[in-house]
């Protein structure tokens, strides 16, 4: 295991794959926005536009046995992890063919088969869970890594500090990935944190910590490879601050009164897909028909997923109280 293994393999195939994964997420989120305006998707909808490079840079580096804990802005994470798009779309619709039987919706995508431990609607709520998953792994002497994604808003919550402390104190194999998009819903980072250098906070708890440009998918992947290997081998936590930006509003129903349009436009010129595409073009890695082909494939997959969701069925009312408790017989007492 040398440093060379940490470097992304810059083959054309891999590059195109990174681009496709980001485009796939972007188009999926777009379609969700459209469906939401048509009231097919209800409740809250938090879209990932602009942050794709983080999920796409980190998650493919993980192994199957590794675990992922995410937030309510987790569609991209679920998709790139391999949760089937049909199941995700059906879940958005609330159909029982969804990955959480339709019970959770946009904010609660779960998939045990992919060790995807869910979205979470409580800011910071997933961090202690990630600590616990890693604790179990350690107690079993396994080598899996737990990747915990959260926004910079979570660092204000007590649970962030408790989790940092526990992970470092007990030396747990957690990769904490903070997606710093500069706004916790409508509150700018500078208005809520005395120390805005997020990874410094983690470093104070004696975690290995660094920051990376979250708009650069190659840079994110490079850092992720190093970090995941470090966690897997040292069995110690690692903290990664990914500096990114949210191009859309916090959720659909947000007038964005808290930030200037000019700022958004500035970031739009730095957004990861545009940036990566430009870089690939400048380096003659992609051909003229690559992106249209990718988009066509992605759109076809999305159309199929929408059709699947539309055709999906509603869970019968009689099942309402199921799955509050386990249904299989409890093991008898000793």
């Amino acid at each position, binding site marked *: 295991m040398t440093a060379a293994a940490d470097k992304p393999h810059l083959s054309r195939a891999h590059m195109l794959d990174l681009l496709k994964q980001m485009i796939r997420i972007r188009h999926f989120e777009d379609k969700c926005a459209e469906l939401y305006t048509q009231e097919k998707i209800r409740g809250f909808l938090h879209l990932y536009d602009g942050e794709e490079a983080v999920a796409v840079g980190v998650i493919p580096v993980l192994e199957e046995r590794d*675990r992922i804990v995410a937030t309510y802005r987790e569609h991209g994470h679920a998709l790139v992890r391999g949760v089937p798009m049909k199941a995700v779309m059906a879940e958005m619709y609330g159909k029982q063919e*969804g*990955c*959480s*039987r*339709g*019970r*959770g919706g946009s904010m*609660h995508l*779960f*998939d*045990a088969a992919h060790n995807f*431990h*869910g979205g*979470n*609607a*409580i800011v910071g*709520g997933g*961090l*202690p*869970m*990630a*600590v*616990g*998953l*890693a*604790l*179990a*792994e350690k*107690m*079993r002497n396994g080598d899996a890594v737990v990747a915990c994604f959260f926004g910079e808003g979570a660092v204000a919550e*007590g*649970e962030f500090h*408790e*989790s940092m*402390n*526990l992970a470092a*104190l007990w030396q747990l194999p957690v990769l904490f990935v903070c997606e710093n998009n500069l706004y916790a819903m409508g509150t700018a980072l500078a208005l809520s944190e005395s120390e805005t250098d997020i990874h410094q906070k983690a470093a104070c708890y004696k975690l290995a910590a660094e920051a990376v440009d979250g708009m650069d998918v190659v840079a994110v992947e490079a850092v992720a490879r190093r970090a995941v290997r470090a966690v897997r081998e040292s069995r110690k936590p690692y903290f990664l601050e990914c500096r990114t930006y949210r191009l859309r509003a916090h959720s659909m129903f947000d007038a964005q009164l808290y930030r200037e349009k000019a700022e958004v436009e500035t970031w739009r010129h730095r957004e990861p897909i545009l940036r990566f595409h430009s870089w690939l073009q400048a380096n003659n890695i992609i051909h003229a028909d690559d992106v249209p082909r990718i988009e066509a494939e992605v759109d076809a997959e999305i159309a199929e997923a929408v059709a699947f969701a539309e055709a999906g069925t509603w869970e019968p009312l009689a099942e309402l109280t*199921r*799955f*509050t*408790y*386990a*249904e*299989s017989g*409890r*093991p008898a*007492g*000793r």
Partner: protein
Amino acid sequence: MQQETARAETIEITYREAVKQAIRDAIKHDERVFLMGEDVGRYGGCYAVSKGLLAEFGPERIRDTPLSESGFTGAGIGAAMAGLRPIVELMTVNFSLLALDQIMNTAATVRHMSGNQFGVPLVIRMATGAGRQLAAQHSHSLEGWYAHIPGIKVLAPATLEDARGMLWTALQDPDPVLIFENVMLYNMTGKLAADAGAVDIEKAAVRRVGRDISFITYGGSLWKTLEAAETLAGAGIEAEVIDLRVLRPLDDATIMASIAKTRRAVIVDEGWRSGSVAAEVGMRIVEQAFWSLDAPIGRVCSEEVPIPYPAHLENAAIPQAEKIVTAAKAMLGKA
């Protein structure tokens, strides 16, 4: 006591010791089990429940935590989701409020939210109750609050058998189980079968058979209620005493069978009366045994006041045997 058996050997044991033995038993026989909480290791446990266990099992199985209720309760949840069987000890129910988000929004909901893909087989133990002049922030009885939440189970062991036997069954349960140990019971001494083992966590128990009135109670209040029943017997009133044992799910059948017999009910509950376990039990009696009642249902609960520090006020604030006797006599028209 319903568990009088002809066992050859009984031992003299405290409630505290019974709980410790339950933990020891579980750690010894199930490698997935470990204990985690504040001061459970080196200190030996706030109530000395885990004294000596660190030396016996080591720091991996008896794990001291920082003062991070939310953090380590969530960690217990994560570890349970990953297949271990942690016992999270929250020092008291008073501090559990810091972990309420994890208990309610993660432990109680994950199975449902994930469409049955993930469960949380976690046990959380907490000390509860008043009586040691610890004042308002250290004297709550919030079992009723927790019993309100679908997705978890709530236990209140009041006897040595239950203190010894409920933990194992709770650890085998695929869903989160909260066990409330009343602080006034830790020193309680009594006889226990030497080979006492796991007990069920589903049914209420009739601790005293009677015919004139049904007392329904749980936890620390059980012994005050039994004392009251003895006093009433001297006045010719034979009270039946039901120990709920499990606050969620409630064992309606046992309760209603008793009411059908006695036609009168007094519920004794150390929680504040408003929106309490007593309120829930009372309502179920109205729903299911209305036609059998000869008198309105009575309650003896804590007064609507944060628990005060001085002894005379604290004693007046929480249920006592005299109040229970008075309530029963009033109901039977014998002042």
